[in-house]
């Protein structure tokens, strides 16, 4: 119930957005079954949202510790390149996935050590890998698009399980696993504690350094997984373009999800709805058929509207207005309103 209340603004936004897109593209919500698969714009969004969605899961944790991870788009390129290299060098599918995820985790470990042990500010620490990491990926692919034809790996990007696109399932499973890990144990609380006040939580006995490193490793792992999905999607690793600028979409998703960039309380579910909102905008623009010069303008305008509507100041005023209206309607005295918060 508390979760529902937390994600209500995001859900309302998503619903409004879907209504808006449906105005321009009436078949938006139609889902058909073709060859045992569910097909339709909504399924495309679930599938296409996988990359930003996976990045968002990791990014939410990093942001909750008052950090930021700018390197995730680049880490996608690296892990995709590793996956394509491994599968074309006759490594087994399991080995390939292990190698690619290890690459992602290693990148996260690097970031985490710079932030937690060396004490560099997160935005600077992760900027290093963001700018240089694409070079690493290009070294692995030798500057080409490294293509592969392994059906097992391609399945992760474009296959279906029980009629649902595999990337959507991967995204959902990863989010569920991390959300459960955070909320069914004290881990989430500790992450929030470190984000609110690192030294206070350290004094209270939280091993803040290890926790910080672990959070960046988790972000690296999510990016690694996203990189595998993106390489599997086009059956090739495109070091120049894989994950390009997606770190910004992921940060945006976290913000639309109502999480504060100053750390503390976080909600993975809300962030994921944020990611879905971004993907719905992207896909909606494509379906609506506007000239491509307008793509970014429309996206910017919609994001602006969403963020303004969600801004704390405005929310506060809405609440005041709503409360006043309720009082007038029900004649409730001022003192009885507190539970509503």
């Amino acid at each position, binding site marked *: 119930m508390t979760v529902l209340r937390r994600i209500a603004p995001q859900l309302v936004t998503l619903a409004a957005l879907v209504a808006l897109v449906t105005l321009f593209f009436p078949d938006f919500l139609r889902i058909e079954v073709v060859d045992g698969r569910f097909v339709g714009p909504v399924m495309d969004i679930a599938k296409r949202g996988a990359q930003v969605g996976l990045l968002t899961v990791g990014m939410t944790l990093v942001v909750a510790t008052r950090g930021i991870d700018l390197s995730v788009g680049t880490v996608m390129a690296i892990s995709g390149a590793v996956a394509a290299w491994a599968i074309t060098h006759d490594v087994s599918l399991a080995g390939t996935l292990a190698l690619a995820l290890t690459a992602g985790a290693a990148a996260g470990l690097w970031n985490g050590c710079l932030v937690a042990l060396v004490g560099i500010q997160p935005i600077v620490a992760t900027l290093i890998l963001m700018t240089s990491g694409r070079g690493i990926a290009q070294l692995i692919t030798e500057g080409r698009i490294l293509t592969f034809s392994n059906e097992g790996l391609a399945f992760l990007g474009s296959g279906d399980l029980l009629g649902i696109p595999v990337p959507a399932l991967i995204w959902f499973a990863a989010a569920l696993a991390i959300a459960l890990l955070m909320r069914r144990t004290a881990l989430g609380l500790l992450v929030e504690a470190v984000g609110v006040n690192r030294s206070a939580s350290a004094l209270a006995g939280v091993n803040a350094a290890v926790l910080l490193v672990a959070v960046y490793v988790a972000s690296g792992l999510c990016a690694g997984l996203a990189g595998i999905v993106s390489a599997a999607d086009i059956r090739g690793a*495109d070091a120049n373009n894989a994950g390009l600028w997606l770190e910004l979409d992921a940060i945006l998703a976290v913000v639309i999800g109502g999480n504060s960039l100053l750390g503390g309380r976080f909600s993975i579910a809300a962030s994921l709805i944020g990611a879905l909102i971004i993907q719905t905008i992207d896909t909606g623009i*494509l379906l609506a058929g506007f000239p491509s010069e307008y793509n970014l303008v429309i996206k910017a305008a919609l994001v602006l509207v969403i963020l303004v509507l969600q801004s704390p100041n405005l929310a506060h005023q809405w609440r005041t207005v709503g409360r006043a209206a309720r009082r007038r309607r029900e004649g409730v005295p001022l003192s009885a309103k507190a539970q509503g918060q």
Partner: protein
Amino acid sequence: MRNFLTAVALAAFGASAALSQTALAQTVGFSQIGSESGWRAAETTLTKQQAEERGITLKFSDAQQKQENQIAAIRSFIAQGVDAILLAPVVATGWDSVLKEAKDAEIPVVLLDRQVDSDKSLYLTAVGSDLVHEGEVAGQWLVDHVAGKECRVVELQGTTGSSPAIDRKTGFEKAIAGHDNVKIVRSQTGDFTRAQGKEVMESFLQAEGRGQNICALYAHNDDMAVGAIQAIKEAGLKPGDDILVVSIDGVPDIFKAIAAGEANATVELTPNMAGPAFDALKAYMDDGTVPPKFIQTDSKLYTKADDPEGEYERRKNLGY
């Protein structure tokens, strides 16, 4: 005189091609932009090959996408006293002074692939492709192929605002103008990448009755076409058959797709800009023939009839 010597050399040593060219042994400096794309890597490989075939010593400099590196490289070529300079300029502006230095040193400069906005007298010639013409060749193929039948075309544009995207769109529209049976019904940018090409094609398929209403795809580059072909296959349609696919560039993977019947045609943007450049330089040095200021490379159309397997084999090791 040189021709005479060559003839003597030929007579004396038999028809040895290599020796006939050592008679005009040359050193040419080549300032390349960097390795921004597979196409450029192929251009570098082919320039080196062409130089070797002609017995030219090539001094190669990779500018890593920076103009200052290119200017430094040209100055060093001038200091070394090379016979000619090939330049693939990273940007159009800011070349006046260094080109003038080369001119003062009487070293001819040939521009490859891209143009500069300096005075035309500062360089010998520019070798490049006509992007509008490429679009026209692609459009003309489609018009001829559908032969009067109704054809609804979806277009995957290059990066919005980039000159290849604008010119290739203009050329295609020019070619289909006056053929009312062929019309572009949807057009979106796919940013020249495979991933975007696939994603945008998926939305085209959704929007056009699961692809039933699409007759052909025109992509501004092959990479987007390769991505779109996957999207078409995943939608349960046959690319190349249910939806015709025509694109531009001629990268190895599209020849694989053409061989498999999944793409129909590609217009080659040849990475061999150095060949025509060396020819022009040779003519200029042999007897002073001044080439035109722009040498347009061939925009050749390849279809299934043009041995796509062979073209793939020829290209796969060029570094694309």
